[in-house]
């Protein structure tokens, strides 16, 4: 990884009371998602109302870590200095086994080996001091 004393940090999320549990759980080694207590709908990213039934009665659940690959891209140019030293890098859309979708990176695999629908498992990595969920084939 790059020397953190000179590295430019990737822009992080604004941490709010709403999304803090998600980012804290990753520090504890858990990936989580929101689940509506009323209708059972499951989603990411954090929202204050269920996008299914619109109620505000939900809880954070721990994800299994299993997911599938929906699509991916490979960056060949850097839009932000934080990733300039890491080209080329892969960003993917993944679908958790439980349903929620999210952007993430695919690590530990050559982009040429990726196929839509392939099974992925979550790994937690450090991104400039923030624990993030990334995915690797398997």
């Amino acid at each position, binding site marked *: 990884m790059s020397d953190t004393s000179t590295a430019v940090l*990737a822009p992080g*999320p604004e941490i709010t009371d709403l999304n803090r549990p998600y980012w804290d759980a990753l520090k504890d080694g858990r990936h989580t998602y929101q689940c509506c207590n009323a209708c059972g709908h499951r989603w990411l*990213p*954090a929202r204050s109302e269920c996008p299914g039934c619109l109620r505000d009665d939900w809880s954070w659940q721990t994800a299994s870590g299993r997911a599938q690959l929906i*699509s*991916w891209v490979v960056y*060949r140019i850097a839009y932000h200095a934080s990733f300039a030293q890491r080209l080329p890098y892969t960003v993917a859309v993944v679908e958790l086994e439980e349903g929620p979708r999210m*952007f993430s990176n695919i690590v530990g695999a050559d982009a040429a080996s990726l196929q839509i629908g392939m099974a992925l498992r979550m790994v937690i990595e450090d*991104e400039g001091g923030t624990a993030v969920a990334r995915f690797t084939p398997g």
Partner: protein
Amino acid sequence: MAHPLSGKVVIAGIGHTAFGKHPGRGTVSLNVEAIRKALADAGVDKRDVDGLMVKAPTSKFEMMYAQKLAEALGMQPRIGGVYDHGGAANISMISYATMAIEAGQCEIAVVSLADNPATGTRQAYEKSYGDDGSGLYGWFGTPAGYAMIAQRHMAQYGTTSDQLGAIAVACRRHGAANPHAQLRKPLTLEQYRESRLIVEPLRRDDCCLVSDGAAAVVLMSARKAAELKVAKPVPVLGFGQGQTSWDVALRPDLTTTAARVSAQTAFAMAGLQPADIDVAQIYDCFTIAVLMTLEDYGFCAKGEGGRFVQDGRIELGGQLPINTSGGLLSETGMPGLQLVMEGVRQMRGDSVNQVRGARTCAISNQGGIMHTHATLILGH
């Protein structure tokens, strides 16, 4: 059978600034120039304009922007405002202006757009779209969202890079013949293949220009156009909208969009089918958007877009010529109103790349990363 509104309103005039770079000029100034020219083209006195609808500029947010523009124009319109649908706003606004005219809310409406991402700020096009921490994964830039969609389309349907290239080749061929186009160099497929990968699978030549500029159109009822003896009125035959709305990661289907319902609505209103369209202007921010829009409009089946755009089918002389003045890939990167203007020229018989005998034109405008979509059908 066409909706009663079909053909009742016309585009009476079009106008635009030069395309490319306007350093030191703000969007209000650019809008004023385009509107002045459109009014002159229509032969309309500014004092008779009572509707003003403006696309929200991306370079800088300003409250009540349409009212600021009205002040600069010395107008006090009855109706209007700013619409924020990204590049779909132009046709959405044309549809609202049409309905407003028919409902007696105004008589002569101006729809305009101005932006200056080339010399102003490109921040809207380069930032991470998500406040959700997607920057932590390096998710930046508008091309990436389209690349994500293109990858899925290639994996699901076998669409190839060369098929995307055929779209770029067509638009660049048409732009090369257009004296007003910013980019007037034809592109061969060989050159396309050597074009630098930006966010794979998209290459530099899959991506539109980033341009300053403004454009405007003037709308009125067909009856009023006859009364004013407008020289070349072009009837609005149909329109529609559709909004995929959700972030690329969250939408259930990445390869079909709300362009489908937008086109169905427009065709139904016009009483026409895709086979009735002689020429089309298809929003080409990125080549994959064109391919998917042609499918979603019903010009070919879903998944067949790659084959459809090959063998010159979408070039002049082909079955469905598209983007006859060059589109966003070649004429200018403005978000969409240039496509409406070229549609008007085709229906007037005035285009530099005129499709002989063309009587109907379909135009697509879209915004975000295929978040919003609007369809316009013009013709006689």
